[in-house]
């Protein structure tokens, strides 16, 4: 059915949705109910003043009645139908469906797009499991080592005497294999947690943005200039957002706009000068520049090596603990998927809003390098009377200065999944490195 003959159907849908009687609408438009009935069943074409009168009576834009569903929506429905040819979808009535139920049609198209995206993610992950040579080799080595340990242990556990030479040999084999297993497991975990570009192919908008920022080393020269912020953001978005999905670009735009505000409030030249006096200490830099500490943290994370030779790391999370920004350090990785260690000061800051937390940490299973972590949670969005504010927490990490440390660094993990500490009140799930 051609699209321009569906105006009547849309009028009928709108009227019924508003629980208006046909006679009432006809009266409001100055026509008879029987004539409106013919219009509603697409047996009379309408336009001009009558269309305007009906639209006014229904309280909608005339184009909503006359133009119907967009071509993209109809194309999306046709694609959804082609995915399931056996479903018997009435392709000849696609236009009518989209015109009469545009909301449901949009839901169907969006659901189909989501399914397609998820299928692609599954495909990429399955493909990685099957074809990633590093992963396959590591898994093979791990399982081979486990097999060797199991075989030797089972021989030693059998009842009866074993020749002392064989016994010693199997003991030695188990010892060597267990050391190798630990090394392989550690390597595998590092590989899986590594910031490799392939992981971005799984396609969540956050991952896409993380990857784009990582490629840019978290620094955006366009936003460090005197250009109008809007133009500079658009220029940076065009460069960094190339190839990203629309959702990822929306996230990136938000991040760039904040960057531009930060750069305007605390220009690089000012920060460089302050760094020369105070070093990368957010609180001290805040005192020198007048910028609030969390803004200083974001600016430090965005500094190029010529301004800050030793890079800092930064994690930002919302009130639910989900990381919305991650810039890890080699000695302080941050999880790409799932939640981080609940012992991080980032999360403690959410429990103590406004309080500036600082202390040294060491991430278990890493090199043992002490890391200075500073965190603060502040409200986001405008204050609303009698409403609880929402909080966002920042945590800056940098190599611990090494002097004045009067207590041992606090031990934290990366994620429960790869944390070797069994007895931890924060544990959410068993660790693959557990000794139990």
């Amino acid at each position, binding site marked *: 059915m051609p699209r321009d003959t569906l105006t009547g159907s849309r009028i009928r849908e709108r009227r019924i949705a508003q629980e208006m009687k046909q006679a009432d609408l006809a009266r409001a438009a100055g026509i008879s109910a029987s004539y409106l009935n013919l219009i509603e069943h697409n047996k009379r074409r309408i336009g001009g003043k009558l269309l305007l009168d009906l639209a006014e009576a229904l309280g909608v834009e005339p184009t909503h009645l006359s133009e119907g569903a967009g071509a993209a929506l109809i194309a999306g429905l046709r694609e959804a139908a082609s995915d399931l040819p056996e479903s018997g979808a009435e392709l000849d009535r696609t236009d009518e469906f989209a015109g009469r139920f545009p909301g449901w049609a949009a839901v169907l198209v969006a659901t189909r797009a989501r399914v397609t995206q998820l299928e692609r993610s599954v495909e990429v992950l399955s493909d990685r499991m099957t074809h990633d040579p590093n992963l*396959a*080799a590591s*898994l*093979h080595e*791990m*399982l*081979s*080592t*486990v*097999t*060797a*340990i*199991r*075989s*030797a242990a*089972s*021989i030693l556990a059998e009842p009866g005497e074993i020749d002392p030479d*064989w016994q010693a*040999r*199997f003991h030695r*084999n188990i010892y*060597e*294999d267990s050391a190798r297993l630990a090394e392989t497991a550690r390597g595998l975990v590092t590989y899986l947690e590594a910031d490799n570009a392939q992981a971005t192919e799984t396609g969540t908008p956050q991952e896409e943005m993380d990857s784009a920022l990582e490629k840019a080393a978290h620094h955006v020269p366009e936003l460090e200039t005197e250009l109008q912020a809007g133009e500079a953001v658009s220029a940076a978005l065009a460069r960094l957002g190339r190839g990203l999905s629309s959702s990822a670009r929306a996230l990136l735009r938000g991040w760039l706009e904040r960057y531009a505000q930060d750069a305007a409030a605390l220009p690089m030249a000012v920060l460089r000068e302050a760094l020369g006096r105070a070093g990368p200490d957010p609180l001290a830099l805040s005192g020198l520049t007048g910028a609030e500490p969390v803004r200083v943290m974001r600016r430090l994370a965005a500094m190029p090596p010529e301004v800050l030779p030793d890079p800092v790391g930064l994690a930002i999370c919302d009130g639910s603990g989900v990381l919305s920004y991650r810039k890890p350090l080699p000695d302080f990785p941050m999880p790409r998927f799932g939640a981080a260690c609940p012992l991080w000061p980032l999360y403690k800051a959410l429990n103590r809003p406004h309080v500036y937390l600082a202390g040294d940490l060491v991430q278990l299973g890493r090199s043992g390098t002490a890391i200075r972590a500073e965190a603060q949670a502040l409200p986001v969005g405008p204050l609303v009377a009698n409403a609880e504010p929402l909080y966002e927490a920042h945590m800056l990490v940098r190599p611990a200065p090494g002097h004045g440390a009067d207590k041992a660094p606090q031990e934290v993990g990366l994620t429960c999944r790869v944390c070797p500490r069994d007895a931890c009140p924060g544990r959410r799930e068993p660790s693959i490195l557990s000794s139990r």
Partner: protein
Amino acid sequence: MTGQVLLIEDEPNIIEAIKFILSREGWQVFSHSNGDTAVQTVRERAPDVVILDAMLPGRSGYDILRELRESTETAALPILMLTARGQTKDREMAERAGASRFMTKPFSNAEVLDAVRALKGA
């Protein structure tokens, strides 16, 4: 029931453990660790049963298996395929390549012993 077993595997401690358990039962066990020369070794040794790892340096176990099955003298040779994967498609791949049996690591000593006995008796 005993005989000769050729174990084609590159993990020395697995070789040692399997040699131990099979030798104890009276089997004569030889081992070979290189995928490139594995087919030649099978022809020279003419074992009763071959235990073949899927992932070897030089050449994949599946390739070796396919070549052995293409030759009339080894087409019916009992071959137990060892792999670190256990997915259905890996099992199917081993079956298509001509494996007599398929075993996923980590396996137990008893499983290997039972499989070798069964293959020799088949």
